[in-house]
């Protein structure tokens, strides 16, 4: 199974990369951009047959290692 | 070849023979057929194409490089190995190498520069030394063009990203600009290593039965044919499609590799080591066995690969980074694998040294290549390409500016301080960790670097200098002056110059004027080294720096290594001038030759005239005097005069020290002339008598020309003053590079 994990930066955490990208887009004339946020995607190939079981496991992986709760939230989607 | 993203786009395979696609000429192909007495296999062609490429074989320059002096009693390893090594006494050896990564940096600046750093570090720790410092000498087109800003930021980012993470401090360097580098940026990197003499390792294979163990990163399709494709070819509008050929570096992998290799050396577990750089496996297998008069049986099935289904050609051409080949006696193989495992790097026995003097490569149980090892390493053609002084040299020399009136000094100086090539480089070096290892006594922002050798009273001084403009106007005089300049900078830290490395960056050698430039720069370096008794212990030649028919300015970059024993504590620094100290000028009598000066370039956009020839006697006098002043602690500030002349040199000291200065002069051209073998000093009043004695004993003219104090930089001609506010000067100089990159 494929687990697609979105590591999402918490909005209250400063995002210098996001700020810089907005500035650069404005320099290029894309003034309609209001905000940018840098998140990450991790794709895991996981063995298992039950979507619920795999999702529960992957959530645990996020809690223990893949996401830092001080900085980030996470969202897991299981596919084939 | 199965990788579609590199060579074969837009080409109908049936029309262009494989050897040409790999960068080999028809004559070279015929040579190969004669050597093998049959048609070569694809794998064999691949190996010859990378080993005989310009970048690996130096086929256009080798004959001429023989001119360089390479011997001295303190040289342990001269040119021909992975790095030069000198004996610095007390059981310590220093290893030094300089290399270029120009073409990859144009294609992908961050990774091109990063992998350049990775490569040069490997060359040094392949010799048994711990890499302890890096220098970068980089050149770009003018910053008004956005692509040049992109390249500069990428290159500095790559050097910082890789150097900092791999844990080797970048302690000095230089950044230059000229229109001719716009499509051909130059990225030269120099690395210093330190080892106990017992630790020295050469690239030797050992006797038959020795195992070849491949250590480090997995082999992938990185940089396939980079050596033959990128480094040896000029660019044109289609070059963007060469992008996938650029290697990607992993500094963490390299750090682990460094520690693993140093442990192998310390425990005496290897006979020889060769790093996998350009020409990857082909070189790492062939060179050590060729040097030892042996052969090797290489089994590609044992090589740990990153991607499945790599064919033999890809594996033999791959330039995946962070890999080393260790030659290990069979009884030590298990221990070597254990060390690799501890450091979490992959290791595999991929070959065995044999009596036959061939490189025999097999895959899936079949022999895919079988060729004489020597032919790969020594069999590359040596071209004596035609050379001739270009017709435009005479015109260039007679193209001098006639000044009808004295220009506004303060205005001219401000313009020069605002020049990115002359202003502060802090924007760059504050991105480099330059303090790691706690050895950096004189760091970035000064002339030469001074590193202490912990556990001894010694210091190692290094300078790195290039000058395309000067060498364009006269390659021989320009290149010679670079050696003298580097040696003087080293002497001004209290060190005695000991060795030189050189990186020659030139255009297309198939043009007679470029070959002339190559021969002249080599001649200039040779003359200066002979005059100073300095051996060249290594070097690099980067040719084909040409785009759309336009060559770069001939740009030799010279590194000079010196030994200070004892190391002065504290050493002279640019920021130690104080109010009340005298400003002294040491050097030849006043000259007014402004050919090649920053002044003419910045204020009149003019480059012309013939630079003054160096003078070995004056050079030696300057070295002796500078060294004695530094060692004697007589001058808190010693600063050589180079780019920008006397005016810039004084301004740099005033800005660094935060104190104004007054310079008395008679002819304004003395302020901007860049003639060699001269330096300035800040001398406390109490030392002036002894300073005069040192100058006299060295045979160098010396005299006070002003003093430090006040809040302005003042140029005084018989009471007529031109003044710059020090704060304004400092801010301008500080922002020169920074503001153009905001």
């Amino acid at each position: 199974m494929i687990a697609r994990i979105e590591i999402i930066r918490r909005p209250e955490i400063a995002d210098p990369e996001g700020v810089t990208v907005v500035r650069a887009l404005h320099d290029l004339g894309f003034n309609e951009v209001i905000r940018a946020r840098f998140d990450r995607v991790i794709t895991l190939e996981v063995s298992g047959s039950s979507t619920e079981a795999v999702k529960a496991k992957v959530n645990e992986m996020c809690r223990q290692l893949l996401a830092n709760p001080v900085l980030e939230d996470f969202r897991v989607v299981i596919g084939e | 070849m199965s990788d579609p993203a590199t060579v074969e786009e837009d080409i109908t395979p049936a029309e262009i023979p494989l050897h040409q696609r790999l960068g080999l000429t028809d004559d070279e192909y015929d040579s190969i057929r004669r050597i093998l007495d049959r048609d070569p296999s694809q794998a064999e062609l691949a190996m010859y194409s990378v080993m005989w490429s310009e970048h690996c074989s130096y086929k256009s320059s080798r004959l001429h490089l023989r001119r360089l002096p390479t011997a001295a009693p303190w040289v342990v390893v001269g040119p021909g190995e992975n790095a030069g090594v000198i004996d610095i006494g007390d059981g310590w050896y220093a290893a030094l190498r300089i290399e270029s990564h120009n073409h990859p940096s144009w294609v992908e600046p961050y990774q091109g520069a990063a992998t350049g750093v990775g490569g040069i570090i490997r060359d040094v720790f392949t010799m048994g030394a711990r890499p302890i410092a890096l220098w970068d000498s980089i050149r770009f087109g003018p910053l008004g063009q956005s692509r040049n800003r992109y390249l500069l930021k990428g290159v500095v980012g790559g050097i910082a990203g890789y150097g900092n993470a791999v844990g080797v401090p970048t302690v000095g360097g230089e950044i230059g600009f000229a229109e001719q580098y716009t499509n051909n940026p130059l990225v030269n990197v120099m690395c210093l290593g330190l080892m106990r003499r017992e630790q020295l390792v050469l690239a030797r294979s050992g006797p038959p039965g020795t195992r070849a163990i491949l250590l480090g990163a997995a082999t992938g399709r990185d940089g396939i044919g980079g050596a033959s494709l990128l480094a040896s070819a000029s660019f044109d509008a289609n070059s963007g499609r060469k992008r996938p050929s650029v290697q990607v570096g992993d500094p963490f992998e390299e750090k682990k590799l460094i520690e693993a290799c140093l442990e192998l050396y310390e425990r005496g577990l290897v006979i020889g080591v060769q790093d996998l750089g350009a020409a990857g496996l082909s070189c790492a297998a062939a060179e050590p066995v060729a040097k030892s008069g042996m052969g090797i049986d290489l089994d590609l099935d044992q090589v740990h690969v990153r991607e499945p289904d790599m064919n033999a050609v890809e594996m033999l051409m791959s330039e995946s980074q962070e890999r080393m080949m260790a030659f290990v006696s069979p009884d030590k193989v298990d221990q070597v694998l254990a060390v690799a495992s501890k450091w979490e790097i992959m290791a595999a026995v991929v070959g065995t040294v044999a009596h036959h003097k061939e490189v025999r490569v097999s895959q899936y149980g079949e022999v895919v290549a079988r060729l004489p090892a020597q032919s790969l390493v020594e069999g590359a053609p040596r071209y004596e390409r035609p050379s001739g002084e270009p017709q435009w040299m005479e015109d260039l020399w007679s193209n001098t500016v006639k000044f009808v009136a004295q220009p506004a000094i303060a205005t001219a100086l401000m313009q020069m301080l605002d020049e990115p090539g002359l202003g502060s480089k802090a924007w760059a070096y504050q991105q480099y960790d330059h303090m790691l290892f706690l050895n950096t006594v004189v760091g970035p922002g000064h002339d030469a670097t001074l590193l202490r050798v912990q556990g001894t009273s010694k210091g190692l001084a290094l300078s790195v200098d290039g000058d395309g403009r000067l060498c364009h106007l006269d390659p021989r005089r320009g290149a010679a002056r670079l050696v003298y300049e580097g040696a003087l900078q080293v002497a001004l830290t209290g060190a005695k110059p000991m060795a030189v490395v050189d990186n020659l960056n030139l255009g297309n050698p198939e043009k007679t004027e470029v070959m002339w430039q190559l021969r002249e720069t080599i001649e200039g370096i040779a003359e200066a080294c002979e005059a100073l008794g300095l051996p060249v212990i290594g070097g690099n030649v980067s040719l084909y720096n040409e785009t759309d028919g336009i060559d770069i300015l001939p740009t030799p970059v010279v590194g000079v290594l010196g030994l200070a024993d004892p190391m002065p504590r504290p050493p002279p620094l640019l920021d130690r001038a104080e109010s009340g100290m005298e400003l002294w000028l040491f050097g030849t009598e006043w000259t007014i030759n402004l050919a090649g000066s920053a002044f003419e370039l910045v204020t009149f956009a003019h480059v012309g005239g013939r630079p003054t020839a160096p003078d070995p006697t004056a050079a030696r006098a300057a070295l002796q005097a500078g060294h004695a002043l530094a060692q004697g602690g007589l001058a808190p500030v010693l600063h050589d005069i180079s780019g920008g002349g006397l005016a810039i040199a004084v301004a740099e000291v005033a800005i660094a020290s935060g104190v104004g200065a007054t310079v008395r002069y008679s002819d304004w051209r003395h302020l901007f002339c860049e003639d060699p073998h001269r330096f300035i000093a800040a001398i406390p009043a109490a030392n002036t008598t002894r300073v005069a004695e040192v100058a006299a004993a060295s045979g160098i003219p010396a005299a006070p020309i002003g003093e430090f104090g006040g809040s302005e930089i003042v140029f005084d001609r018989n009471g007529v003053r031109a003044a710059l506010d020090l704060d304004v000067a400092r801010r301008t100089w500080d922002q020169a590079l920074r503001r153009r990159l905001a």
Partner: protein
Amino acid sequence: MNRIAVVVFPGTNCEQDTVRSLRSLGAEAELVWHRQDRLDDFDGVVLPGGFAHGDYLRTGAIARLSPVMGPLTEMARHGRPVLGICNGFQILCEAGLLPGALIANAGLAFICRWVEVEVISERSMLTSLLHPGQILKIPLNSYKGNYVDPGRSGRVVMRYVDDPNGSQDQAAAVSNQEGNVVGVMPHPERGSDELLGSSDGLALLESFLAASRVGAGV
């Protein structure tokens, strides 16, 4: 005589500098490989600077899983002095031994230069021999030196005089409530020799060593 463990992960690079500086102050400093799962007989622990595990995933994220972190956490709980310098600070945050986290410098560039820091509190084993208001000159050398602490539970014991990287409250060093676990972003060991620019960092290392000679706590 205090025995100080200086932990080495793959990718760590400041361990020799740290050991040397501690030894110059009379301590018995020893390198400890990250796979070691015991820290018996050590009076204090230092996590030095560098790029443990290549900073992969997040800086310090993988390092905090190493076997040595078990006994290190025990020592922290027992009030022994635990100091994280630069990368070490990042690891302590990831391990939950200090609140908050380190993110990219506001200017998005690596910074290597001297900075001035002001002591805010002497109630930490890093600053116990100093007094509030004291200014020290030590080198900063980091890309992810920007301290954030949304929960505001960290105790800032030193702060930058001029903001170099956007850190919350200009925090340069943060301590736990007990004062025995401290993370500092600039490098005290790099400010330990006048010849190289300043020896102000020695006072910080001396505070740490003084705490390690005493019993638990500060």
